[in-house]
């Protein structure tokens, strides 16, 4: 049997249609329901499973076992898609479920040993999955059903999720996992009247680039080499000096290619010297620590599918830090050609909170895409 895990957050997306920013916490869910919101997550999860079943075809379809939680937490969706399910968790209180149910269901499902965990929800659900999964190396894919989806762990549609799942479970061709960002709105910043998001970590996601293209030869296979080229180019630009690494999967891979062990979600600082391994000067540095550095290069990569370069998940690299480092001249934007192309011509976005600085940084900037390769790309506010 091929086991696929499914955990549905039944209240995900409830807030969207009735104008609530999100549905995090039981109060918002109840408010949304009282305002007439209808649950969508279960049906969208069923659509993903339906696509998975259609792509698996006979007889593989009968070999599929959905490991899931009872009722609206997954079993209902599996039944709607006509697939066999095994229930490994049941919430105590019927339809009034919570983040704790998501986490408990995830733990129960992955304990059964599944090839892939599908979850239906939004950014809040993705954070719950991240927390529950811990160090378990189980590939994960989000079926997009939430209100806010800044994270890069979601397929572009429920159907696309089914397609990616089918490709992953069948493992035809080169399917790898990549680390995708889990982002969520920064509630602290929201309290201060700023809308911004934070990076909470990474989840391993099947790397099936269906959104950009179907069969680009060796695109995902070429990624590690491209990152190696970007790392070498960045190191040459810096020469001997300090390199601030913003969060992001590209910057993290670049650090690894340079031989540095850096933190997962924070801003780290490396001291580079040609011919020597990099030295980690600071881990998870805050604004004050960065301001104390003096002149430094700042390496950034766009985060998630939105193309945000500054102001999402890297607020430590504040306007003051950017100005102190030397502004535009000291910025190294690192991005693979594939990731840049996936933006479909949209500019890289700036939202530092300092309009004058954003205006200064706007315009065409060379993005390092490989060894001795750059793309002149637009940055915009």
């Amino acid at each position, binding site marked *: 049997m091929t086991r696929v895990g499914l955990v549905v957050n039944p209240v995900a997306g409830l807030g969207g249609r009735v104008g609530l920013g999100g549905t995090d916490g039981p109060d918002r869910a109840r408010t949304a329901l009282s305002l007439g919101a209808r649950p969508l997550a279960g049906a969208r999860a069923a659509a993903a499973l339906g*696509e998975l079943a*259609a792509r698996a075809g006979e007889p593989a379809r009968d070999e599929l076992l959905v490991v899931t939680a009872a009722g609206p937490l997954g079993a209902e969706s599996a039944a709607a898609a006509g697939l066999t399910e095994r229930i490994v968790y049941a919430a105590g209180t019927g339809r009034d479920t919570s983040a704790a149910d998501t986490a408990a269901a995830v733990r129960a499902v992955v304990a059964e040993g599944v090839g892939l965990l599908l979850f239906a929800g939004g950014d809040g659900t993705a954070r719950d999955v991240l927390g529950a999964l811990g160090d378990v190396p189980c590939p994960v894919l989000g079926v997009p059903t939430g209100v806010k989806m800044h994270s890069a762990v979601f397929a*572009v*549609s429920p*159907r*696309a999720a089914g*397609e990616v799942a089918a490709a992953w479970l069948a493992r*035809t*061709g*080169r399917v790898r996992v990549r680390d995708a960002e889990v982002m969520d709105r920064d509630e602290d910043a929201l309290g201060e009247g700023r809308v911004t998001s934070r990076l909470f970590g990474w989840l391993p996601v099947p790397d099936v680039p*269906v*959104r*950009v*293209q*179907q*069969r*680009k*030869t*060796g*695109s995902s296979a070429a990624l590690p080499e491209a990152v190696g080229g970007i790392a070498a180019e960045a190191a040459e630009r810096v020469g001997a000096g300090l390199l601030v690494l913003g969060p992001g999967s590209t910057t993290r891979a670049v650090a690894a290619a340079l031989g540095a062990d850096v933190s997962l979600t924070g801003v780290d600082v490396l001291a580079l010297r040609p011919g020597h391994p990099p030295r980690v000067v600071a881990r998870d540095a805050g604004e004050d620590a960065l301001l104390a550095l003096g002149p430094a290069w700042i390496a950034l990569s766009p985060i998630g599918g939105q193309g945000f370069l500054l102001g999402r998940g890297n607020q430590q690299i504040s306007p003051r830090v950017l100005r102190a480092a030397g502004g535009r001249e000291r910025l190294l934007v690192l991005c693979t*050609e594939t990731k*840049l*192309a996936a933006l*479909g*011509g949209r500019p890289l976005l700036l939202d530092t909170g300092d309009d004058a600085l954003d205006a200064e940084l706007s*315009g*065409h900037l*060379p993005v390092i*895409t490989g060894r*001795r*390769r*750059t*793309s*002149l*790309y*637009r940055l915009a506010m």
Partner: protein
Amino acid sequence: MTAHAPVSVAPEEARIVGKPRLRRFQQASWDEKLIFELGSPGERGVLVPSADPSLERPAIPAALRRAEPPALPEMSQQQVLRHYLRLSQETLGADLNIDVGQGTCTMKYSPKVNDQFVRDPRIASLHPLQDEDTVQGVLGIIHSLEQLLKEISGMDRVSLQPGAGSAAIYTNVAMIRAHFAARGELEQRDEIITTIFSHPSNAACAKTAGFKVITLHPDPDGYPDIEALRAAVGPRTAALLITNPEDTGIYNPRIEEFVRIVHEAGGLCSYDQANANGILGITRARDAGFDLCHFNLHKTFSTPHACGGPAAGACAVTEELAPYLPRPTVEFDPESGTYRLDDDRPESVGKMRPFYGVVPNLVRAYAWIMSLGAEGLRAAAETAVLNNNYLLHKVRQIPGVSVPYAAGRPRVEQVRYSWQKLHEDTGLHSEDIGLRAADFGTHYWTSHHPYVVPEPMTLEPTESYTRADLDEYAAILAEIAREAYEDPETVRTAPHRSTIHRVRPQALDDPAVWAVSWRAYRRKVLGEAGRR
């Protein structure tokens, strides 16, 4: 090309415009084995009479002789003929289908008489090491073709030595490098600018030649970004390598401005004219200010891509850059009326390949140009553009299709369409639609590099196809789009009436799996051990 205006249009018009009939196509499936699995030991196609033992004198030294004969198939003539006829029936060749779906390849009809010229013993039996006195005819063809391409490009000198389009681009980059080396500026000018929709060979060749590469992305209107170009140029700029029109079919309306900006920064401009089919006789590289350009003779000038080769590239340059052309050049001495090869060119970038070019393709290109003449070339270009925009008009009305970048603007000789909307609505991919087309006796393939347009489809109708052909092709796409929305399973599992169901791409792009020889097939596919 050969259409004449009918005297009375009304009844004809009605017949042609009527809804095209969709073919009930069914491809042959012979379930034919590989040739290595056919035949039997000792079977022969030709029995060669053995020589008298007293006359046997081994021409090959003993040390170079095989201990055992090579493992070749052993078959009679009829078995061989039947084998290849069966394979040909399982193939959707360029002469058999409406081959407009092989966009970027300019799959025009190549007149069969041109092949007769190439097969003529006066061409086919030439040896590249013959003394030049004995190959005056072919040297004359090469020299004349150079003169024709000078006129077509507006440039001063031409080399026909490069063996393909990318080889021609590399030759141009090598000449750019030689030019700046001669001026002592090579260390300073180490950057080459290109655009994301230029053929990726431009960036690759620039990098191979040691330059840094700067890529420009489209501006918000979908055209090459002139503000990005202004930000990119400077004292480090060696050259601009740009394809125009791009594979999207978009013609850069500010191409002269691009050239001026780069020239003002001291750089050279090299024009990738692999997509010249829509501009022959209409614009010239030199008139737009370029210093170098190249053509793909196997695309624009007949020999449509053959079976992936052989190709032929042509480089054209200004007088200033002529000393750097590959050697030998073909020179004409008007006094003696003879042609000779000039190898004494000290500033030359050297040989790009052995001898003097892919002669069969040069002969075809020469024959094609001479048969059309200047007016015919322009008519071919205009017809290609008309055909393309006619097809564009029909295809953009099909549900699920869009034409990204420079929305609503006409295209030159090809269009890169997107099935993104259909994909979002149905979950089907462009590849599924291309495969379903095989059930109607045609296809489109997967050359959409760089893969920037989502769910791409690139169509290039050239001047060869009739209005009825284009109507049929558009009707096939419309039918598949209808199926995609009403009966997606049929499209997802296509083709149903073709010889081969679905090709697994790993067989073509995964070195661990691909098997391009019988020996590799036995080792990788059949799993026979001990075979290298």
